[in-house]
C-alpha cells in the first residue's frame, strides 16, 4: 500500500489488515512509554490546507509514537495564500525529503492529485466532501472493539450527508464489511442521486431508532441555514437531534458515535452526551491507534517496494 486515499482503495481485506495492525499498536499505547522505533528516520509531512486540530494532533501523536520525524505545514502560514499551485507546493515540501504526506484539504480530490505528483506516500486526512478514510477506520475499530459483527449490523448515519466526507467514507467502509447503512436527513441535506452511495434513506429518525445498532451523528453546520437547506437549528434539533426521548428508543445495546466536534443542543442534547452508550472518547483514543497502523503499513510497504525494485 503506497497511499491511503479512499476506503474503496482498501477493500475488506485492506481494512482487516489495518485492524490487525491496530490491535498490536493498541498494546503499545498501553505501555508506560507508548513509543516504538518502527519509523525511526522516516519523515512525515503534515500538510493541512484546512484547519483541523483534532485530526492533525491525532496524526502527529501517532507519528511520534512510531518515532517518525514530523514536518509541519499550514496553509495559513504558507505560499498557498500567495497563489502557488498545489503542485508547486507539494513539490517544494517533497524536495525537503519526506517519506509520507498526510494531507487535509478543503477541495475534494486534492490527495488524488498530490499522489500523482509525489513519490512519497500520500495519506488522506480528509478532502472536501469526498473522503476521510482514517476516520472510517477508527470508527470501524471502535465498533469492532465492542465485539460487534459487521455482517447485518444496522448502522444509521444522521445529519448533513451531502457535505460530509465522513458520511461518504463510512458508508463505503460499513457496507464493504457487510453492514446495512441507513442515511437519516431532510432531503436538502442528502446529495442528489443519493442511491448511488449504496445506503438506504429515511427522513424520519424516530421511525428507525428501535432498529438501530449504531447511531452515527454528524456535525451540523450553521452555514446550511444561510443556504436555506434547513429553516433553523431549532427545527433541525427537533427533527433530527438525539434528544433524551429519542435516546430511550434506541436499544440498550446500541452505540452512539460522532466524529466530533459535537454541537451540544443541535445534533445531540447535552444530557445525552453522557449516556453510557456514547463512544466519542473511545473514537478519539482509537484514532491514534489506527493512524499508527496506517502510517506503519504505508511507510513499511513503501520501504519494501523501494528495496525490491
Amino acid at each position, binding site marked *: 500500500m503506497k497511499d491511503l486515499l479512499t476506503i474503496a482503495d482498501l477493500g475488506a481485506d485492506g481494512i482487516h489488515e489495518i485492524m490487525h495492525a491496530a490491535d498490536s499498536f493498541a498494546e503499545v499505547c498501553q505501555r508506560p512509554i507508548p513509543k516504538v522505533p518502527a519509523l525511526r528516520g522516516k519523515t512525515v509531512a503534515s500538510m493541512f490546507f484546512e484547519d483541523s486540530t483534532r485530526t492533525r494532533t491525532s496524526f502527529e501523536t501517532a507519528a511520534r509514537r512510531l518515532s517518525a520525524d514530523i514536518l509541519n505545514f499550514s496553509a495559513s502560514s504558507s505560499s498557498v495564500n500567495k497563489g502557488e499551485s498545489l503542485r508547486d507546493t507539494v513539490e517544494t515540501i517533497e524536495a525537503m525529503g519526506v517519506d509520507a504526506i498526510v494531507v487535509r484539504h478543503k*477541495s*475534494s*480530490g486534492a490527495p488524488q492529485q498530490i499522489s500523482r505528483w509525489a513519490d512519497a506516500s500520500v495519506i488522506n486526512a480528509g478532502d472536501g466532501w469526498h*473522503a476521510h478514510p482514517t476516520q472510517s477506520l477508527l470508527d470501524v475499530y471502535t465498533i469492532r472493539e465492542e465485539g460487534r459483527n459487521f455482517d447485518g449490523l444496522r448502522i444509521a448515519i444522521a445529519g448533513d450527508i451531502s457535505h460530509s466526507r465522513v458520511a461518504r467514507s463510512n458508508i463505503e467502509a460499513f457496507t464493504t464489511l457487510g453492514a446495512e447503512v441507513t442515511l437519516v436527513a431532510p432531503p436538502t441535506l442528502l446529495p442528489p*442521486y443519493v442511491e*448511488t*452511495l449504496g445506503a438506504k434513506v429515511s427522513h424520519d429518525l424516530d421511525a428507525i431508532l428501535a432498529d438501530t445498532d449504531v447511531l452515527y451523528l454528524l456535525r451540523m453546520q450553521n452555514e446550511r441555514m444561510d443556504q436555506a437547506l434547513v429553516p433553523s437549528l431549532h427545527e433541525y434539533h427537533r427533527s433530527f437531534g438525539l434528544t433524551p426521548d429519542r435516546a430511550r428508543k434506541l436499544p440498550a445495546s446500541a452505540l452512539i458515535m460522532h466524529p466530533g466536534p459535537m454541537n451540544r443542543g443541535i445534533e445531540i442534547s447535552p444530557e445525552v452526551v453522557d449516556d453510557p452508550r456514547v463512544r466519542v472518547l473511545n473514537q478519539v483514543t482509537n484514532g491514534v491507534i489506527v493512524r499508527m497502523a496506517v502510517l506503519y503499513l504505508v511507510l513499511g510497504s513503501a520501504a519494501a517496494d523501494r528495496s525490491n525494485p
Partner: protein
Amino acid sequence: MSLFIHGGTVIGSNGAERSDVLVTGSSIVATGLDLPVPNTARHIDATGMVVMPGLVDLHAHLREPGNEEAETIETGARGAALGGYTAVVAMPNTAPTIDSPSIVRDVLAIAEGVPCEVVPAAAMTVGREGKLLTPMGELAAMGVRIFTDNGRGVQDPALMRSIMEYATGLEAVTGGAPVVLAQHCEVEALTAGGHMHEGEWSTRLGMGGLPAESETLMMRRDIALARRTGARIHFQHVSTAEGVDIVRAAKAEGIALSAEVTTHHFTLTDAACSSYDPVFKVNPPLRTDADLAAIRLGLADGTIDCIATDHAPHEPHTKEFPFDQAPPGMLGLETALALAITELDLPIERIVELMSTRPAEIAGLSDRHGNPVEAGQRANLAIVDPNAEWTISGTGMASRSHNTPYEGRTVRGKVQYTILEGELTVDEGKATR
C-alpha cells in the same frame, strides 16, 4: 500563384465526388477532371483525401487582449489552421471585454495577416456584467453579427428581453442581415458552488454540481422571449439531453433559433472527472452517457446546427490547482475535426455541414466561407486525409496552452492542407506561418 489539387474527393453542391480543383489567386477557378493546368501551378496530390470548404468555428477563446500567456490571436489562428479552420469567431470575454468599436478594431488589427480569419463577436452587455447594453448598433454597423456574453449568460430576464427587442431593429444598419444573439445558458443561482455535472459522479466524488436545469431553464426562458420579440437566437454549447429536446421542439414550432454543441460534449462524460484532473473541468460540464447519446442523435437528425470547439486555453499551472479552484475550459481547435470523423457515425458531407456550412451561415460569412467547392467560390479550403491516424498531444500543439482532455488518444482524420484566400496556411500537415 495557382494551386492544382488533384486526385481528391471534393465536397461540391452535389455531395462528394472525385474531382480536381484549380485555384488561382483567392478563388476557385475550375473543378472537374482533365483541367487545363498552368505550368506554374503548385501540384497538391489529394489522392485518398477529401477537399472541403474550410471549417468555421463559432466559438473560440483566443484570450487576446489580456491573457496572452494562455493564447494569442496568432497562436490561436495557427492552431485553427492546423485544425482545418479558415474562420474562427473570437469570444469577447477578454480583458478588456470586446464591447466597443475601438476594441473590435484593435482585435481586427491584431488579426491582420494571421493564418485564419478571426471574426470578433461582441458582448451584449457592457463588460459582460449583465447590466447595460453595449453599443450594438454601432458594432453591427461595423460588421459584428454575433453578440454574446459568453462565459456567462444574461441572468436578468427583463434585460434579455430588451436586448432581443433592440436587436430586431438592427437590420436597418446591417443591410437586412440578421444579428445573432448567442446565449451561454446558465442560471447562475443554480450553479453556485458547482464544479462538475450534478449527477451520480458528483455525489460519489463529493463535488458541488451544476444541474442540467441550470441550462434548460434559461433555454426555455429565451425561447419564450424570442417567441415574443422575434429575435434571432443561438444557443451555445448545448450539453443536456433535455436541451436537445428543447431545441428540437422550438424549431418545430418555427422559432428563429440555431444551436451548437461542442466536441467534448459528444466525446466525454462526467465519469472522466473521477480522476480529479482539472483538465476535464469545463463549463457547461461534461455530462452523462444519456446526454452524450442525445447530442449525437441531435447532430445526426439535424436538430443541432453545428459543432463548435469552445476552445479555451489555460496556462498549464492553472490546471495544477485543486479541481474546484482550477479554471474551466479545454483546447479544441486542433482536434475537433478528427474527433468528429472518429467518434461520429456521420457521412463526411454532414460533418462539413456541421463544421463549415451552417456555422458560416450563422456568423454571416457565407460570402466567403462554408460554400461548396466549386468554380467562382473563394478559395477557403481544407484538405483532409480521413483515414490517417495520429495521436493527440497537448505539448505538440500550436496553442500556447496544452490543456487537451484527449492526451494520448489516437484519432483518425488529419488535416494535410488548409488554404486561406488561395494561400496555404497548412502544407503537408505543417503550419506555413
